[in-house]
């Protein structure tokens, strides 16, 4: 009856059971990626064959050659610029704002938080029309900033950092104040180290979500030199046919920076976990 909590100290049977389930699920989750990676080395006949070809019998580079015959590097650079900028700005603004929302007792705090939740609730598909009108007004349409700025404004990050900041013990903040630390110093020397795992998570999420926000890119970016990689590949599809090889090659290329960012920021969770243990 006490087996649901976690693995440590629980029965061996349960341990084996959960490892088996985890491995089965891992295969289930890895398979689409496997199919995409191998598919990117297959020709159209092999991809669409009636009998699935489990491994590319005659691997070809044609899909990648076709991809790079287009300005794929430019598109990749565009999306990297967008995602990295959005990530950096979001981490900075959201960690400050999240801390204030969680720990400051200021007038209008509850109203502001309600507005934030309502803003997240309003679907992007309707908000994008006035947003595009606004971008045209600011002469920013078809500019990478038209994707970056609304992404930074989107309050998911603030909400996440507020939740993370709530776990900071208030006594520590008060101790810092008694020691005579100013607000800014308190934030950078006391708060920032404690919410670092949160910032690591936020960095990954912002990067990946911005990267995958095809809809906003589609509406905001219209000229070929401003396309992002997913957008550029989508534009190469025929009216009644899909170039699956190109889609898969593009997905592989697009996944590389995401994996790099994931691995880079993953470290901070580990540090956070170690710190959590020391903290008490």
């Amino acid at each position: 009856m006490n087996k649901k909590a976690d693995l440590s100290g629980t029965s061996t049977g349960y341990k084996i059971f959960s490892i088996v389930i985890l491995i089965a699920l891992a295969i289930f989750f890895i398979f689409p990626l496997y199919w995409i990676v191998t598919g990117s080395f297959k020709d159209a006949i092999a991809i669409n064959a009636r009998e699935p070809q489990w491994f590319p019998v005659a691997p070809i580079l044609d899909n990648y050659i076709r991809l790079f015959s287009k300005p794929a590097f430019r598109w990749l650079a565009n999306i990297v610029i967008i995602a990295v900028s959005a990530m950096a700005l979001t981490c900075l603004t959201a960690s400050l704002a999240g801390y204030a929302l969680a720990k400051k007792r200021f007038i209008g705090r509850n109203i502001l938080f309600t507005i934030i939740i309502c803003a997240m609730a309003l679907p992007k598909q309707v908000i994008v029309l006035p947003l595009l009108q606004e971008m045209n007004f600011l002469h920013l349409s078809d500019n990478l900033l038209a994707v970056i700025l609304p992404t930074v404004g989107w309050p998911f990050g603030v909400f996440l950092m507020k939740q993370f900041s709530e776990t900071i013990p208030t006594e520590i903040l008060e101790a810092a104040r008694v020691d005579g630390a100013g607000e800014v110093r308190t934030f950078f020397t006391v708060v920032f180290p404690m919410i670092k795992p949160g910032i690591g998570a936020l960095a990954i999420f912002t990067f990946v979500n911005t990267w995958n926000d095809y809809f906003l890119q589609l509406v905001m970016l219209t000229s070929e030199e401003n396309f992002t990689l997913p957008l550029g590949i989508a534009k190469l599809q025929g009216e009644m046919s899909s170039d699956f090889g190109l889609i898969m090659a593009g997905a592989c290329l697009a996944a590389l920076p995401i994996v790099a960012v994931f691995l880079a920021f993953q470290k901070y969770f580990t540090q956070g976990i170690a710190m959590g243990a020391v903290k008490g």
Partner: protein
Amino acid sequence: MKKFLALTLSATMALSLAACTGGNTGSTTSGSTTSSGSTTSSGTSSTSGTGTTLKLWSFNVGTLNEKANWDSLIAKFNETNPDIKVEVEIITYADGDTSLSSAIPAGSGPDILFEGPERLVGNYGRAGLMVDLSDLWAEGGADIAEGIKSVSQLDGKYYMYPLSVAAHCMAINYEVFEQAGALQYIDQETRTWTTDNFVKAMEAVRDSGLVATPGIVYCGAQGGDQGTRALVNNLYSDYFVNDDGTSYNANSANNVKALTLLDEMVGNGSLSANAGFAAAEELQAFANGTCAVTFCWNYSNYTQYAAQTQFTPYAVAFPSDDGQPELEMAGPYGFGIFDNGDDAKIEAAKKFVKFVCDDVTAGTEAVKYTGFFPVHADWGDIYADAEDADVRAPFAMMSNYLGRYYNLTGGWTEQRALWWNMLAEILVGGADPQTAADSYVEQVNANIA
């Protein structure tokens, strides 16, 4: 911690870089964006001494999804009109509506759009956003077929000037039909077949066991609806809308008879119906030999799937009880010009459209990119010397069977969504054809006004 700060710092630097490059591209390439945006809102002319910049948005018709092909046409145009700059952006049928429906109301839409009458005339012409192109028709439209002319206009104003057209037909897997002994049911001379022979042929293919299913009636939304429409309408020679365009016609006696026949064929396995399939999936299934016929065929699809078809796709007309098919047009495709209140721009846009559609050299090249046939009868057979002339020939033959065009009937967009639903209800859900068709007609007629 230091590492983290360094990372953040470098990210911020990347951001400032982004701001720079973003700003640069914004000022150099989106000059037209800003100028068209401001003219739309203020309604004043922005013609400067340096010439005009036009924004052309093109749907991914044939190989016009390649920007390079447009650039070749524009280069030819600039030989005689160096002061008019045309910037092309490709939009796709998958999400072009998203781009258009957000950009147009926001004032950053195109000056010229390359598409068919459905959007140019039915949507944007009807909404009063387009320029009347009567002058282009008066100058160069004398040899364009009446059917195309009639769909380019609404209430006497011409909102589209056409470039190319084709007949929408079906295709069979020649080798499978041969081995199944089903070729005897097709008149290979005229590439037509009767409804009875269609039924027999599909049963022969089914009995041969050569394919997973003889044919798939795709009932999933998005595109290719002309194929299923033409199939239903031709089986017992009826039309999709009534003669004066005041009512949709799916519940007529002959159309219901056709739906019932299809339902029976699905029931006995000589056809399948898939609500999860759109036209593209059906074509894919045809191309890899899952099924032996496709209801969504034209030259453009032939070329798109040529690399993976390991058999002979053989174009035929839709089966008809009297053996006289009436095919829907695939397209016609042409240009529409948005009225942005800037006369100089409109004039420049007309020059460009006239050049691409009426100049024989440029026009022929453009038509070839679409994969279809010129609307100008005077141009004759532009593919006569083409390497693949023999592949083209059957598609040219299909043009003889072109029927009337009705994509401009009111409520067309709403109709399409409900058409799929009706097909699926009958062929997948087992609904009574008459009841389902009646309910469909009642719903779609409400939008005709």
